């Protein structure tokens, strides 16, 4: 097992190099660079534009730029952001932490909601309840995240009109004032409460698609396991229905779901998606979008490389988890 883990770790190196090189290449293939937007500003001369390119190192061949970036990365330095002129990690860190609030809450939300519903739907297949949740799942998968977020904003506005005060905040992550004092001077628990209050609607938006998907997976898994011979055997042995469902069906049905937990790792550091933009949540997504628009190469690369590393570790973790929950799988 140890040898297997070491081997997997060694595999990570070429994968990482390939993935980041490709990402760097793709960014370079897109026309334009960080300075392009200044080129259509009538107040700059050509010489000034070229000077900016020189200062930012954008006049060098891209292999040189990549090599520089990589050597920095190996020393634990993600590079200097072009627009912020500061360490990329310093820019990414607070955004990742903010996003984590949403991501962790929505993952909990997804699992807590979808697994029981999936079990219910499978055990009462084609009942009215099952049909209702199926419809809900299709809605959840079909509605675009950004549009749902906008609906939620107007829902919050409507609540405010109806009740005369804010039931849910209209976007943002922190209030300006908490109990009449500046947010950052309020007690820590009040600050957290305020953040969680802001998180309710975004979490619903961010979690809906995931819930819908996982619910369907869980249902299918349960249905499939229900048909297995060992389930019939268990029933034939005269085991109670409760034991059959929870010990024989459920435990086998959740195996792939547990195995997929490893994949959540990169998600934790990947931002919660468009809901952050629409609901003004100061997460990673608006930052990355900004960086893509302005072609701030090192912010984009910083985020991609973190995701790549975590994806690879998550992948490994999933395989190990699988071996742990499923006695049929062994690595040697």
């Amino acid at each position, binding site marked *: 097992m140890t040898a297997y883990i070491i081997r997997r770790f060694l595999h990570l190196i070429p994968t990482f190099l390939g993935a980041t090189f490709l990402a760097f290449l793709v960014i370079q293939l897109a026309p334009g660079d960080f300075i392009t937007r200044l080129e259509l500003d009538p*107040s700059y*001369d050509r010489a000034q534009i070229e000077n900016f390119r020189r200062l930012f190192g954008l006049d060098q061949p891209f292999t040189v730029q990549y090599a520089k970036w990589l050597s920095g990365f190996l020393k634990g330095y993600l590079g200097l952001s072009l627009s912020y002129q500061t360490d990329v990690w310093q820019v990414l860190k607070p955004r990742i932490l903010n996003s984590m609030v949403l991501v962790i809450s929505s993952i909990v939300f997804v699992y807590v909601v979808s697994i029981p519903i999936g079990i219910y739907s499978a055990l009462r297949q084609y009942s009215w309840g099952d049909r209702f949740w199926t419809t809900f799942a299709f809605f959840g998968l079909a509605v675009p995240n950004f549009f749902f977020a906008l609906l939620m904003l107007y829902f919050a506005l409507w609540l405010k009109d109806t009740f005369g005060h804010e039931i849910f905040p*209209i976007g943002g992550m922190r209030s300006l004032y908490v109990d009449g004092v500046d947010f950052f001077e309020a007690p820590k628990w009040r600050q957290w409460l305020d953040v969680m209050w802001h998180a309710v609607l975004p979490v619903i938006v961010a979690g809906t698609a995931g819930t819908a998907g996982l619910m369907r997976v869980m249902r299918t898994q349960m249905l499939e396991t229900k048909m297995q011979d060992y389930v019939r055997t268990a029933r034939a042995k005269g085991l109670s229905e409760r034991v059959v469902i929870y010990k024989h069906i459920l435990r086998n049905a959740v195996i792939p779901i547990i195995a997929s937990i490893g994949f959540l790792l990169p998600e934790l550091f990947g931002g919660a998606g468009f809901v952050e933009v629409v609901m003004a949540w100061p997460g990673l997504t608006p930052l990355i979008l900004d960086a893509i628009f302005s072609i701030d190469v090192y912010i984009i690369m910083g985020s991609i490389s973190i995701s790549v590393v975590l994806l690879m570790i998550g992948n490994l973790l999933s395989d190990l988890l699988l071996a742990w929950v499923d006695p049929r799988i062994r690595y040697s």
Partner: protein
Amino acid sequence: MKKPIWILAVLALGALVLAQPKVFKAPNPSESPAYGGDFRDVSTSDPKTFNPFVAKETSSSDVISLFLPWLTDYNPYTGEPEGLLVKSWEIKNNGLTIVFHLREGAVWSDGKPITADDVIFSAKVHADPDVGSNSIKSFEIDGSPIVWSKIDDYTVQADFPKPFAPALIQGWSIVPKHVFEKAYAEGTVTEMWDVGTDPAQIVSGGPFILDQFVQGERVVLKKNPNFWGVDEKGNPLPYLDRYIFTIVPDINAALAKFLAGELDLYGARDADQVAQIIDRIDSGKLDATIFPNADVTTSTNFVFFNWNNEDTWKAELFRNKKFRQAMAHLMDKESMIELALGGLGQPQWSPISIPAKAFFTDDVAKFEYDPAKAAQMLAEIGFRNKNAQGVLVDASGRALEFRLATNQGNNVREKIAQLFAEDAKKIGVNVKYAPIAFNELVRQILNTRDFDAILIGLTGGREPAFGRNVWELDGPLHMWNYGPDFESFEILIDKLMKQGATTLEQSKRREIYVRFQQVVAENLPLTYTVAPAYNPARLNKIGGLFPKEQINSLEGQYPYNYPVTVFIKK
């Protein structure tokens, strides 16, 4: 009106400390301002830095200009140059030398005086090509440097390589030398004041002091008690306690916040947003005012053709004035306003921004929407018959068709381009419209030159001389024609631009730029389409804003670059 004693005390103290305060004129003298309160504004993206030598876009520079002073700016009421940190100036040597006298008694928020040393140091750093400040453009004219020197502690002198009309506008940030000097000497000046810097370390010489910055969320500035500005009654400014920018990347979300009364100002983008605000005001849920179509913005949308086209047939066609005028006759500006701008906007005929009243003229040739006239003009230049596909052909049988591109994702431009292409098709001009990515568009314009026609815009402003890179023959943005063959009208435009930039007398300058607009409108190197409306909205509890008749999109809702006249009504 009775004033509390402490205000009088502060006043007396202020008069004592600050011998030469700057008087900021309120837009509406009948209002009686009150002190205190938060002013809540919105921004679509984070400031990227608080260092003026690093700032590359407005989300950063807008915040920086609240705490780092400028020498001069335009007077918000007359549009003429006006001193900020500068008290007065003398023009010498036929306009080649300007001596600026600084306000004595102005201090940084850490107590040190703001002196000529700070100004000269800041100028030196901005002008240093190895620093990469965006303001470097304010320190060169056609590649020759403007030389700044110190005369005494409160006097500086600028020497210009040639007479320069906008010489009195010196809008670049002045930094405290004692804070930046060491970093500059060590070559690390661009590492100063990044977004991770503790706000308490950031020194202010403007009306506000940075108080809090939460990345992606908000910027909070508090009033600078040492600010060198007063109102007309001599009361210290600003009135506000805090100025808060909330960062909301999505414009619909920002609208929702304004509708909920959580923002004090808002600029509605289109007719739909205007309608939502009006609805809410009418239903009594929002105590606010909106001025739809109060002005137009300075952003422009124009079509231009590639005179350097590799296809000589096309190059010759695009060079033909009659062809361009025929194309202008195909632009249905009313429909463009209706469909692309949601009903709010104005047609534009010439290059100077409509709000730049000091130079703008409406007295130019207008090629109004008239497809019949367009068809007739095309017939005059040889396109008399149509082929089997219904496209006009010339005597040699070549069909009248060209590609038109605009930047993808800009809904307004995409719709304008579609409308033009449809109208052109009706009389047999085959316009093949396709949107492409902005950076690719820039590459085609500046490098590869493999386009036929492009619809794009440049942000205009108050000062036409800053457009020289577009209009002078060797300008890098002389986008339709990079030579070497120039038409006589292009040479005339080049001459007018050079004259305009070097003439100092305002009435003569206006004459020059009026002529310039007429020449452009007649010859259409760029064919202007429509300019979007400026629809400002505000909560009624905010005072010190421009009344309706004074609103102009160059200034925004309040005079000066910062809300010094703004107050919260009691």
